[in-house]
């Protein structure tokens, strides 16, 4: 892991709302606030957190679907933060995205063959015969049958549509795929199929993933490292096993303890940390550590000073004054 494939430094995305005429009444929503991480070639970084924590916004900034307010995104050695036009198009060939709702992201009036072929045609990756073959082989790779090529998206089930979305993302042979909640709309059994498929593709093609999800079990299954977000910032980042088995940040602990366990025997011995209330609004974050009002371990310093994302002895990073290790 010497040269990272993706290097994000101090990335921020702020939205300004209200106050069209005057400065008063204007609020700044810090959806993503000073986030840094790297992804090595072939590595999967799981990005977890609850709704509104900024994980989707972060994913969209990385793929340049949203313009970052500050910070730097380096992909494959090039700074892509302000890229546009042809350069951005070329970057996108190596940096694709998969979405949560495969139905909304597929044009309902086009045959899936054309949907998958489109990026190949746009990037001029061959003559029509060659593209035909490429699409057929992509279809095979994602576990769809050749006779399904000429169907329309609505003729597919949710899981199959997600396969089509994956085939389209794979068409240009990207190095990194940003997957935004790719399995959360699917039933458990179908979800397992897609998780396995992504794991296979990762192995076979050396793909790197930024895997955004709220389901910690799914993330554990697929991610090498995990980043936990709370209120626009990463609060813990480290190897998946370490973070999920022995979380250091109180928020990660609470998050993990809240996941219901499908085993009544283990469920009973589990100690649950029930968080009070809801996450605060990113337009009006608490002072100091953003988690301190809901944290059972907060002390004086937590209310005044925001803890930096600092390494622990075992190498993982955590943003906490009192890490639980």
């Amino acid at each position, binding site marked *: 892991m010497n040269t990272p494939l993706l290097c994000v430094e101090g990335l921020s995305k702020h939205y300004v709302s209200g106050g069209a*005429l*005057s400065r008063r*009444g204007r609020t700044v929503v810090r959806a993503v606030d000073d986030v840094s991480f790297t992804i090595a070639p072939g590595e999967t970084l799981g990005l977890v957190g609850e709704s509104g924590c900024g994980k989707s916004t972060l994913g969209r900034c990385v793929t340049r679907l949203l313009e970052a307010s500050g910070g730097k995104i380096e992909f494959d050695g090039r700074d892509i933060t302000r890229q546009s036009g042809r350069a951005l198009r070329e970057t996108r060939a190596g940096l694709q995205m998969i979405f949560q709702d495969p139905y909304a992201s597929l044009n309902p009036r086009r045959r899936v063959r054309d949907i998958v072929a489109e990026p190949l045609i746009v990037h001029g990756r061959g003559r029509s015969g060659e593209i035909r073959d490429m699409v057929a082989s992509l279809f095979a790779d994602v576990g769809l049958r050749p006779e399904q090529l000429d169907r329309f998206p609505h003729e597919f089930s949710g899981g199959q549509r997600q396969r089509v979305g994956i085939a389209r993302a794979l068409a240009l042979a990207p190095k990194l795929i940003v997957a935004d909640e790719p399995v959360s709309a699917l039933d458990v059994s179908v979800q397992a199929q897609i998780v396995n498929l992504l794991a296979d593709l990762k192995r076979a093609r050396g793909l790197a993933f930024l895997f955004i999800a709220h389901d910690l079990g799914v993330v554990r299954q697929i991610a090498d490292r995990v980043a936990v977000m709370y209120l626009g910032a990463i609060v813990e980042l480290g190897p998946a096993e370490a973070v999920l088995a022995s979380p250091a940040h109180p928020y990660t602990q609470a998050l993990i303890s809240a996941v219901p366990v499908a085993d009544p025997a283990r469920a009973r011995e589990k100690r649950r940390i029930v968080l009070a209330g809801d996450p605060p609004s990113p337009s009006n974050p608490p002072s100091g550590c953003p988690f301190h009002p809901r944290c059972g371990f907060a002390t004086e310093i937590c209310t005044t000073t925001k803890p930096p994302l600092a390494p622990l002895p075992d190498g993982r990073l955590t943003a906490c004054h009192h890490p639980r290790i």
Partner: protein
Amino acid sequence: MAGTVLRRLAHMIAVLFGISVLVFLIFFATPGANPAARIAGKDASPQTIARVEKQFGLNRPLPVQYALMMKKLFVTRNLTSFVNLGEKVVPQVFKAAPVTLSLVSGAAVIWIGFAILIGALAAAFRGGWIDRLLMVLSLIGISMPVFWVGTMANLITQGAYHHTWLFSWVPPLGYIPFSRSPLGWFKALVIPWITLAILYIGLYARVLRAALIETMQEDFIRTARAKGLSERQVLLRHALRCSLVSVVTLFGLDFGVLVGGGALLTEVVFGLQGVGYLTYQALETLDLPMIMATVIYASVFVVVSNAAVDIVYAAFDPRMRVRR
């Protein structure tokens, strides 16, 4: 709150300025437009035209003319007609406004009431014969031209059946001010109200029915049923309030337009000297001061009723309050 009002006001002034400039320019800067020649009349000599130009100030630069006209309209209020010389414009509009307001407000009460009744009934019996009958009737209402309905109403109430017990109470065509006789005012306006309302009853009933049927598919309707409410309570307490928003939107636009002169045909048919009538006459003679006055008046109403709609919105639907 004060900020909102101020912003609204600024917004309104900007709109009025834009409209007045536009009307002014259409009148003066349209290719081939020569106001002086038009005022001077057919086959006027160049000298007459020149005199007219001087007399009406038409030889001065356009911005100055515009400023003068606005000053006379708003500050000194002594803007006079180009056609009926010496006749002041502003009092005319103020005389016509109550007529139109009376006509449109009364009609609005009728059309909103009936539209809600018909729309709710149709939605409640969706697919049944009541629904179909009401929708056919409302379609007929929409399709009948208002001047035809008005003429027919006049033929019946003023002509053929005027002397029967049914319509002997209908006064002759024309307006009776409320201050002179409230009952007379009411009698004089009932037939025009109904005439004007028919189209809108049909339109609004159909819009409301569609909105209600859509709302009845919402999750919260299922919750309301699960609470043990009867179908009627579900429809009236939960679906109707949410569906009225679409009607309120329409109403804001329609009301503004009608008060601003859109009720012209009804006014003409029933001999009501309202704003529509006034605008119509001014347009016929291309009487700029009068056009300017009525247009400004109309736009004030459109803007004001739009603002009123926003307030009503918030009353009907708290979702609007949360936003911004």
